[in-house]
C-alpha cells in the first residue's frame, strides 16, 4: 500500500518541485534588488511608455510592502504559488481524510496550472487563427 502510494505520489511531487524551481529562477533573474526590473521588452506601445516613465522616475531604494515588486517580464509564473496556496486552502476544507491532503493539493495545483495553460493556448489559437478567418 505504502509503495503504491509513493509510486503514484512521486511524479506529482517532482512536477511541482520543477515548476516551483523554474518560476523561482525566472523571477530571481528578472527582479533587481531595488525592485525596478530591467527595461521591459514589452508587448506593445504601452509597455514601452511605462518602461520609459520608470527610467525617468527618481531612483529610490525599494521598500517592501510599500513599493510594488516589478517583475513584468515574468508575472505569469506567479500563477504557480497562487494556485498552490489556493489549493492548500480549498483542500483543507474539502479533504475528509487528511492523510491524502498533500497529494490532493499537489494534484489540484497541477490541474489548475495545466488548465490555465490550456486556456491560454486556446485563446491564442482563437485570436491568431480563428478570428482572422471569421473577420479578416
Amino acid at each position, binding site marked *: 500500500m505504502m509503495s503504491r502510494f509513493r509510486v503514484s505520489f512521486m511524479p506529482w511531487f517532482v512536477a511541482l518541485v520543477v515548476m516551483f524551481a523554474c518560476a523561482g529562477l525566472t523571477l530571481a533573474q528578472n527582479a533587481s534588488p531595488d525592485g525596478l526590473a530591467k527595461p521591459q521588452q514589452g508587448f506593445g506601445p504601452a509597455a514601452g511608455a511605462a518602461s520609459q516613465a520608470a527610467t525617468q522616475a527618481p531612483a529610490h531604494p525599494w521598500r517592501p510592502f510599500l513599493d510594488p*515588486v516589478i517583475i513584468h517580464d515574468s508575472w505569469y509564473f506567479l500563477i504557480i504559488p497562487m494556485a498552490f496556496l489556493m489549493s492548500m*486552502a480549498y483542500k483543507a476544507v474539502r479533504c475528509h481524510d487528511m492523510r491524502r491532503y498533500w497529494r490532493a493539493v499537489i494534484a489540484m495545483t497541477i490541474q489548475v496550472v495545466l488548465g490555465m495553460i490550456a486556456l491560454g493556448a486556446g485563446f491564442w489559437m482563437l485570436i491568431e487563427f480563428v478570428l482572422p478567418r471569421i473577420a479578416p
Partner: protein
Amino acid sequence: MSSHQPTTDFHPKALLTACILPGLGHIVRGEIARGVYIMTSLLTMFVGGIFLGGVDVIDSKEDRVWFYAQALVGPAAFGVDYYHQNHLKVMANTTDRSGRMALRSAFPTEGRKPDGTVLLGGRPPNTKSVGRMNELGTLACALAGMLNLIVILDAGFPSIRPRRQQPTPRAGDAVAAELAGNVAISTATGGNG
C-alpha cells in the same frame, strides 16, 4: 439511514473566531492541522499580495469593489486599509461627498508631512502600483478573502465528516457471512443444524 439525519453542524464559537483570523475557527473546533493549513495558505496569499503590489492593493476608497472581497480576510484587511488611508495618503485639494478633505495617493515627486499635507519634492510614502503587479496583488488578496468565506462557513456549519471510512459491504459479503454463520451453528450442534 434516515433521510432526516443532519449533514451539517453549528459551532457559533468557531464561526466567530474564524471571522477574526483565517483558520482559527477550525483550531478552536479541534481540527488543528486543518486550521494551520488554512491559516498558513490564506495569510501567505494575503501578505504575498501586498508584497507584490504594495500596500496600494488594499484601498477601500479607490478600489471599493475589490475591497469587498478583500475584507472577508477579516480585521487584517481593515487594519491595512486604515493604515493606508490615514498614514500613507495625502490630502487632496478637494472635498469628498461628505464634505471632508479628500485623500489621494502621493505623486512620485511628492512627500507627506505628518499632518497629511503634501510635501513638495519629497519621496511618496508608498508607490502607487500599476499594471500587472497591481492586478496580481489585488487578485491575490481578493482570492484570500473569498476563500476565507468558504472557510468561515465550514468552521461555523461544518459538514459531519465520517471518523473513519468503513468499506461498504457488498452483496457477496453478506452471503458469505451468512454461510459462515450457518457453518458455525452446524459445527456447534454436531452437524444437525
